[in-house]
């Protein structure tokens, strides 16, 4: 190992020897397939089964959780790298790239490597806990069975996405989770705004999918194959003249746009807050822990493409900027939200910004580590929010207050989650956020490769300070959330029932489970001490690539201090404003800062812009214009053909009546006239007949004499 300063460069010789995972990896195709199959079982047999479909769903997620953890443990030894694909079809012939004349291959398969295993474990464990929680939360719901069918479909789709060995299968999984997101956000579709939110989510993602498809096509056709392993070996061969490096920049931008939609980066973030219309377990699993991380996963899966010089590494400045903007601006909006789920939604947006920033800074492990820890504590926070909502029958923090006494478990787990999210020392969020800050600082220093991009190092330093400010804002709004919900006096009415009480055990046990994860998983990757996470996630890429990523060998105490100080400042300010006085808490919360508040409350007017600038014109004038065109131009062609046929028919009729029938009648008339004329010879008088005979004879004889 060569080491200079606190940083270490991984070189090829150190790449671990990996195993192929044995029967565990060979059987890993079950992980995506079982949920997909069980979805259909639930749809067809769920209502008849004793647990109404929940049993099948939870068993499936439990299976995935166990399998994922087993793979995780097995991976800790030598590191598993296994990939298998089943050939489906050959399409056409390629006209460019190294594989001219060969066909594009379509396959279905599964990958078992560190990154996939991390996602299997995340989806499985968090998913299982959320499913258990959902049994209590969705009790008595009118569409209970269908809810679990859609949820299992989501799990299957997500697992298809993360097990995909090629871009096509990833897109299949991407769309599957998009569909199930639509179904689940619109679960309470009786309210029009819920179905509108579902459509908004779907369409925003669809806009971003244009980028995804374009990027996938560009990469696939220039490499000659959609397989990630082929793409990575093309990248490993180096930049220069290969087709992939010619299109690399734009393909990278396009793929990142796709990631922006799914991971809700600015300005395609608008769907995530509205997606809170769905049931809380959905918000917890999909819109915090797993689905929204698919974009970050994609960038991670394509990481060498974005890291190696000559391909898409210039896109990283865009990723940094987008991530930083998202990180900071959405965090600010969380300050003015009354709905507790919206606070957490904007918090999710902000944390996704952190993950994106990490990817942009070239810190693969840091970004994915934050994805992992965030999955646990954000899911936890959402489930706690659901527990509180369940108790007070309202989403709004202005109806809550003083809940820490009646709901102790919820309170303590929420506190653990909030503490982790704020990045305060020792819990998971601290370690993962700190790694991101460290990688940003490294990227901003002279040794990083980002200096080759336009002002890359300076940008990284700016983003570092934005990230630290973001930590302050995060702590600030979380403190507000904690204090408004759990401290002070109870402000709600809970429909005139008895005061709110703790949720049933089926809902609180998952809270505790997730809280343990939120607390402890940070220790998986303490710089310089444990590198469990790095070894797990990174094993595949570190062969064949030099200097792909930089791992710190010790904690950067300065940054850790800065981050903690920012968070502590946020907590202190929050406590100062909303903490001490139970009576003035509500008044202080409704105080609106003059210019800033409307801007934040209207979400920087972006939703208004989309609605008035895009949706309304399309729905109104454009739709009307298209309708006019359809009715008057296209229908004109059809109607015109009808008119022509009718006119033609009239002429044919006239011709038939007067022409044809006339001819026939005329011939009959001619026959009749001839008969009438000939009748005149038939007088009945013999002497006239005799005259005719003699006259004829004379003519004949005369003719004979003359002509012979």
């Amino acid at each position, binding site marked *: 190992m060569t080491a200079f300063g606190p940083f270490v460069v991984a070189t090829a010789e150190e790449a671990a020897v990996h195993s192929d995972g044995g029967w565990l990896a060979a059987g890993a195709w079950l992980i995506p397939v079982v949920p997909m199959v069980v979805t259909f079982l639930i749809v067809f047999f769920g209502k008849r089964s004793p647990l109404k479909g929940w049993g099948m769903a939870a068993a499936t997620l439990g299976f995935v959780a166990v399998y994922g953890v087993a793979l995780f443990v097995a991976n800790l030894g030598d590191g598993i790298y296994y990939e298998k694909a089943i050939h489906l079809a050959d399409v056409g012939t390629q006209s460019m790239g190294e594989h001219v004349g060969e066909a594009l291959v379509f396959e279905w398969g599964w990958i078992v490597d560190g990154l996939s295993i991390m996602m299997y474990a995340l989806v499985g464990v968090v998913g299982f806990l959320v499913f258990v929680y959902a049994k209590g939360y969705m009790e008595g719901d009118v569409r209970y069975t269908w809810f679990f069918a859609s949820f299992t479909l989501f799990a299957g789709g997500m697992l298809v996405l993360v097990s995909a060995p090629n871009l096509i299968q990833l897109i299949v999984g991407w769309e599957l989770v998009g569909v199930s997101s639509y179904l689940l956000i619109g679960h309470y579709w009786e309210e029009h705004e819920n179905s509108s939110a579902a459509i908004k989510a779907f369409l925003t993602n669809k806009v971003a999918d244009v980028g995804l498809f374009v990027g996938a096509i560009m990469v696939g056709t220039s490499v000659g194959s959609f397989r990630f392993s082929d793409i990575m070996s093309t990248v490993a061969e180096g930049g220069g003249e290969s087709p992939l490096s010619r299109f690399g920049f734009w393909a990278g931008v396009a793929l990142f746009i796709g990631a922006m939609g799914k991971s809700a980066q600015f300005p395609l973030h608008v769907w995530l807050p509205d997606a809170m219309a769905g049931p809380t377990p959905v918000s917890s699993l999909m819109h915090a822990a797993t689905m929204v991380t698919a974009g970050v996963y994609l960038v991670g899966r394509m990481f060498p493409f974005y890291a190696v010089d000559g391909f898409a590494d210039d896109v990283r400045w865009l990723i940094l900027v987008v991530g930083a903007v998202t990180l900071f601006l959405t965090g600010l909006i969380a300050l003015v939200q009354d709905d507790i789920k919206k606070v957490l939604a904007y918090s999710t947006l902000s944390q996704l910004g952190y993950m994106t920033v990490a990817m942009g800074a070239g810190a693969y492990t840091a970004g994915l580590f934050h994805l992992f820890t965030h999955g646990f504590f954000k899911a936890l926070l959402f489930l706690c929010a659901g527990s509180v909502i369940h108790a007070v029958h309202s989403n709004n923090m202005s109806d809550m207050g003083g809940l820490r006494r009646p709901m102790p478990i919820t309170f303590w787990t929420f506190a653990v989650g909030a503490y982790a999210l704020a990045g305060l020392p020792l819990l998971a969020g601290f370690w993962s956020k700190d790694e991101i800050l460290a990688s940003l600082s490294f990227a901003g220093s002279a040794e990083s490769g980002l200096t080759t991009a336009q002002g890359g190092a300076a940008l990284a330093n700016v983003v570092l300070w934005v990230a630290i400010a973001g930590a302050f804002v995060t702590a600030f709004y979380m403190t507000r959330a904690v204090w408004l919900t759990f401290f002070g006096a109870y402000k709600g009415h809970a429909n005139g029932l008895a005061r709110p009480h703790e949720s049933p055990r089926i809902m609180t046990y998952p809270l505790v489970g997730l809280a343990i994860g939120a607390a402890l998983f940070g220790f998986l990757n303490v710089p310089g001490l444990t590198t469990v996470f790095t070894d797990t996630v990174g094993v595949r890429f570190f062969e064949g690539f030099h200097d792909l990523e930089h791992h710190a060998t010790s904690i950067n105490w300065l940054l850790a201090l800065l981050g903690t100080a920012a968070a502590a400042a946020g907590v202190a300010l929050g406590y100062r404003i909303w903490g001490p006085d139970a009576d003035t808490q509500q008044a202080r919360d409704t105080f609106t800062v003059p210019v800033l508040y409307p801007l934040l409350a209207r979400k920087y007017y972006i939703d208004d812009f989309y609605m008035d600038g895009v949706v309304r014109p399309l729905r109104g004038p454009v739709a009307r214009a298209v309708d006019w065109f359809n009715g008057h131009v296209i229908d004109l062609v059809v109607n015109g053909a009808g008119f022509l046929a009718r006119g033609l028919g009239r002429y044919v009729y006239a011709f038939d009546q007067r022409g044809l029938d006339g001819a026939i009648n005329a011939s009959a008339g001619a026959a009749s006239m001839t008969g009438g004329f000939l*009748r005149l010879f*038939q*007088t*009945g*008088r*013999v*002497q006239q007949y*005799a005259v005719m005979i*003699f006259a004829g004879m004379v003519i004949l004889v005369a003719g004979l004499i003359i002509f012979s």
Partner: protein
Amino acid sequence: MIITQFLIVGAALFSLGVYGVLTRRNAVLVLLSVELMLAAVNINLVAFDRFVADQLAGGQIFALFVITVAAAEVGIGLAIVLLIFRNRHSANVDELDLMKL
């Protein structure tokens, strides 16, 4: 005596007969005119026989046939005229136009 003298007589008689057939109103007189035509034909036949000097004397024998046929024909013709006269009380051929269309 040359043959044309006899042929002219025969032609004359024949023409008179034709005139009679075509113009006479009485049915009996029409039959009479037909007899005249047949007689004229006989003259022609005998004249040709005399001047061509046929070994079999075909002309004379044919003339005998004609006479026989004429006789038979007159018998039947007159019988028909008699019946017509009984039915229509008139022997005027101009009035026999029942076959008119």
